[in-house]
């Protein structure tokens, strides 16, 4: 009796695989496989061909190493713009009082500063007694001050689509991490960051609603990546964002989606021979 569902599942999977294969043959018509590609008959032989690599554990040593990098960059100002002037030459000065009116001014750019802060939070949460823990707390305290976050929020209200969606999504992941932590410092930080998260979540909802096509390239604004970063926060603290994430954009009729799908398939066909071999889908 127990075998039956498994057989059914196997057959179901097989039929899926067959139709997928059929679909592939359809779209690959006209292109032929380069002779050097190895062919695997099943998953097991493919698996056996892979190098034996064990996942790296997140142990104390790794955590210690990983905490040093964000610690060293959080206070390092983002680089001065280095554009060559065309006719208007610029001289640059830092924003006055940036240490109290900006939260994420280090680590090369805004979103890297946010995810560096997230890295510190994540490490402190997992290993609260690391030797670097006091330094981490100090750094987070400095950057998550109420006035720092308020300054950031004020800036973003006038900053159009800057960092949307990638940086916004990282901030929501950071806030998810803070709010799901009972540490007394974290409770204070989460309260400070909350107005920013509320604002960014509302903007994300509008953004997703107005988006007519997902960004499918492997670059920063990739839609799936942003949604994944925002999902923890949405599920736990923001029902409206969660609802929006589960829905297709309003601007999309099903016809548009069909067109997109066709074009994606066509694109895959035309790109396959060159990019397959090197697995460089995300280049």
């Amino acid at each position: 009796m127990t075998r039956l569902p498994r057989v059914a599942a196997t057959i179901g999977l097989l039929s899926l695989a067959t139709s997928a294969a059929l679909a592939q043959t359809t779209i690959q018509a006209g292109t032929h496989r380069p002779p050097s590609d190895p062919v695997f008959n099943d998953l097991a032989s493919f698996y056996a061909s892979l190098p034996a690599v064990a996942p790296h554990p997140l142990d104390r040593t790794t955590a210690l190493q990983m905490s040093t990098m964000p610690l060293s960059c959080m206070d390092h100002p983002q680089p001065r713009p280095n554009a060559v002037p065309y006719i208007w030459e610029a001289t640059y000065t830092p924003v006055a009082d940036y240490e109290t009116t900006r939260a994420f001014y280090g680590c090369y750019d805004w979103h890297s500063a946010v995810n560096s802060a997230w890295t510190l939070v994540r490490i402190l949460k997992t290993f609260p007694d690391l030797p670097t823990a006091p330094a981490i707390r100090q750094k987070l305290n400095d950057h998550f001050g109420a006035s720092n976050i308020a300054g950031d929020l004020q800036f973003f209200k006038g900053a159009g689509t800057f960092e949307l969606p990638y940086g916004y999504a990282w901030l929501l992941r950071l806030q998810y991490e803070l709010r799901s932590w009972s540490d007394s410092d974290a409770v204070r930080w989460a309260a400070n960051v909350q107005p920013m998260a509320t604002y960014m979540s509302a903007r994300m909802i509008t953004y997703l609603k107005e988006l007519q096509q997902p960004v499918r390239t492997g670059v920063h604004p990739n839609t799936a990546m942003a949604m994944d970063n925002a999902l923890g926060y949405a599920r736990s603290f923001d029902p409206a964002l969660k609802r929006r994430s589960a829905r297709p954009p309003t601007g999309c009729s099903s016809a548009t989606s069909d067109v997109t799908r066709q074009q994606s398939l066509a694109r895959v066909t035309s790109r396959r021979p060159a990019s397959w071999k090197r697995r460089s889908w995300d280049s």
Partner: protein
Amino acid sequence: MKARRALAAIYLLTGWLARPAIAQQPTARRDTVPLRADYRDLAELLRNLPVVSPRPFDESVALWLGALPLSCLDRLQPRPGGRGGGRATVAAPTDSGRGRGANAPDSTTNAAPARGASGAPGPAGNNTGAGYFWVANYTLMNDHDRLRAFWGCNDWHSAVSSTWAAIRVLQSYPNSTLRDLTREKLNAHLGRANLDGELAFFRATAEAINPIPSASQTGLFERPYGFAWLLELASTLRTWPDSQAKRWSTNITPLATWMADSLGAYFTKLVEPIRTGAQGNTALNMTLALDYADVAHDAKLRAAVVSAAKKFYLSDSTCSTQTERVVPAAAGRGGRGGGGGGGGGGGRSANTDTSRRQTTAPNDLTAASRGAPPPTPFGGGGAVIASPCLSEAALMTRVLDPRAYRAWLDRVLPPLQSGRFSPLTEAIAIPTSAPAPQAPPNGVAAAADTTPTGRAAAATAAATALSTERARLAGLSFSRAQSMERIARALPTTDPRVAAWRRLSAIQADRGFELMRDDQAGLSWLPAQALLYMTVRK
């Protein structure tokens, strides 16, 4: 027995679910007017089209189109930091005097190097993060009129295309009353030192992105659109047997050669084409590049374009002309500048790719056609000023031999008489209002300013937005007409479709001239669009 039947059912069901979704015909979007029914044949289409004859390129048109570039070539591009570009002008009506002639579709790029000049936070609508940490203060460089060639007309590519427009008019009407003034301006801008300075600037800019010349140098200032226009300019100078033009051509050759190499490398490294109708549209820029490659005998650029064009477009399926209908911007769909941008991270350099720093225009159905993604660091954002389907079809006339082209065209464009093609058979509707240019970012409307000054400012903003929208649609009309002429030219004269294409292009261009006539916006870029259409027509 029962179990086996269930299994068969599961098998069938899963197979059915996983079937390729290719066979389905896309239908009209819910939010568009239904497409008209197919006409029986070309004859029925022609009977139903208005009879519009192409406007001749006579002296009065030449004087009109030739005067406009002269009025902007010496007008300094706006200082960055929120004062440049149509959007910023609208947002700050007190600055409208300085923003005169600013026009969003072709020049929102100006807002880009926007670094808040007077302190944080940056101006509203600044999408680059300028002023977050570094606050910029701008001064004009020394000798800009001696060391730069294209410093007027709002932005670099408009300055280049305006220079080209001035040249085209002078070339066609060498004895017109504009003659001396045009030559004086061209001499002042196309001197040796000016163009050497341009080349030094672009070399330094490219090197600041990546010192390795063969690297992709993503986001290089004005590439591809400005580069493509510069090549068009260089090719026109090259073929003009005029003693001054020969000197200008010699002066511009080093810059053109450098840009041809750089643009060829850009096309070669492009992962996928930009299929939106914005300036970055790959087919559009490839067509201009081929105009140059043929005249300058640049085999390397030609090979780069041809092989990339084949890789991108040869296996295309039918293009979604049905989604290229222009829906009046005020009728919902968010309007230009709604929150749908994907500016991406960083934005470190002020001189970034034009397409990258444009604001989104989610209202434009043409942007959504062909599965065009929203703006990404690969480019593709920005207002729609060209037809994606027609641009592609115009490019392929230069890539395929005539027979292969006809087969390709029959597959990629729906029949001219079909309902699916009908959006491109109609002149674009003249807009009567435009969406508010600055949607509040968080969706919360700001309190309306009811003071007399506030009301006046709002009225000015609305008028500017409308004029900007009219300019965009004029540009789109000319660009459609230009592509249609290129397609007509590639078909054998005996082909019955040639007459239809010519009529369609006349309809589009006629609307372009009508939209362009009374407007202040677009004057820095529309004359070149009109002239390019009339140049291709011959």
